[in-house]
């Protein structure tokens, strides 16, 4: 069997947390097995197929967690299409279209560059260096962020008022940084949110909403591989890994939405700097 059930469970638990924490899930998935000396071929098709199942589980948890918001957002998009305008007081419609516009650059860059970037940089050495650089992204976002005005508006209304069309395009494009193992998707989009004037909580919420369609689409595109010959011997571990990933993803998103009410990205930046540097040194000398 290419991946044992034990390894699948550990990687699943790790994926659920690291996909949503701004610390790069892909980077951890590349670095941890090498650090622990697991014999997993990370560029092999079966491993990429296995990862798809974990991503899909994480994305479905995100979808379920924000389900009521998604229902409102989709209805808002429907209303705007019917009326052929985005009414200024329709926060759900504005947020929905912000998510659509933000998803376009991320989708295009992901579809066209994913395979090339992963094959270039999917080594533990590169991933640990980029994990350390991810710390600079998080530090930089905290350093340069605009102070978010405190208002009594609803979360989505606040986001819809603060984020403009150009902002969402830039935040969406920033997600493409996560195609390089070591850089975090949620870190890049949360950082982008902070730079355009969102609070930490709103930036996290916007980042999770923005990530959901991209992760689901990427997983659905690869699902036929799991059903086909590349999934032989991997489906059982993938199911176990996906279940573990779903549990930790749920706990992670619940924790982070509370955490960002009063806290910043700095602890994650410190972690990335320390873990990335330590891993890079370890791989260089070992």
């Amino acid at each position: 069997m290419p991946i044992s059930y034990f390894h699948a469970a550990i990687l699943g638990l790790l994926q659920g947390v690291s996909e949503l924490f701004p610390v790069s899930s892909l980077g951890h998935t590349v670095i941890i097995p090498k650090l622990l000396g697991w014999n997993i071929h990370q560029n092999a098709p079966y491993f990429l197929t296995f990862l798809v199942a974990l991503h899909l589980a994480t994305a479905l948890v995100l979808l379920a967690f924000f389900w009521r918001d998604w229902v409102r957002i989709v209805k808002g998009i429907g209303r705007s299409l019917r009326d052929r305008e985005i009414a200024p007081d329709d926060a759900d419609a504005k947020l929905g279209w912000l998510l659509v516009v933000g998803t376009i650059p991320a989708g295009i860059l992901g579809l066209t560059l994913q395979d090339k970037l992963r094959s270039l940089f999917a080594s533990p050495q590169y991933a640990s260096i980029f994990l350390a650089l991810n710390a600079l992204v998080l530090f930089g976002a905290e350093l340069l962020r605009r102070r978010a005005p405190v208002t009594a508006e609803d979360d989505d209304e606040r986001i819809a008022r603060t984020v403009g069309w150009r902002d969402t395009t830039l935040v969406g494009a920033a997600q493409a940084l996560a195609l390089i193992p070591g850089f975090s998707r949620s870190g890049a989009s949360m950082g982008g949110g902070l730079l355009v004037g969102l609070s930490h909580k709103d930036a996290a919420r916007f980042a999770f909403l923005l990530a959901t369609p991209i992760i689901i689409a990427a997983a659905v595109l690869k699902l036929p591989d799991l059903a086909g010959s590349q999934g032989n011997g991997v489906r059982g571990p993938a199911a176990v890994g996906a279940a573990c990933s779903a549990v930790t993803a749920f706990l992670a998103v619940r924790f982070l939405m509370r955490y960002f009410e009063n806290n910043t990205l700095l602890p994650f930046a410190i972690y990335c700097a320390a873990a990335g540097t330590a891993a890079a040194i370890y791989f260089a000398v070992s």
Partner: protein
Amino acid sequence: MNRRTLAALAVVLGIALIAIAIVYWVEPAKSLPSFFPGRQAGSNHHHTKHGIASFLVGLAAFAFAWFNTGPKKTRAAA
């Protein structure tokens, strides 16, 4: 540039992008026109993802045109 012209351009762009998407889905890499990203002599690989990207941006162009040709209710009310 007025809204009607922008909408017309968006429709043309949308049609072109969806046509490009179909070409990506139907033709293997070796048969793509030379100016298409992903053309590769001798390759039978279909660039499905390039096609999806092109199709989605085409849909976005249509959505842009749809909003730009709608009635100006809010502006009129304001």
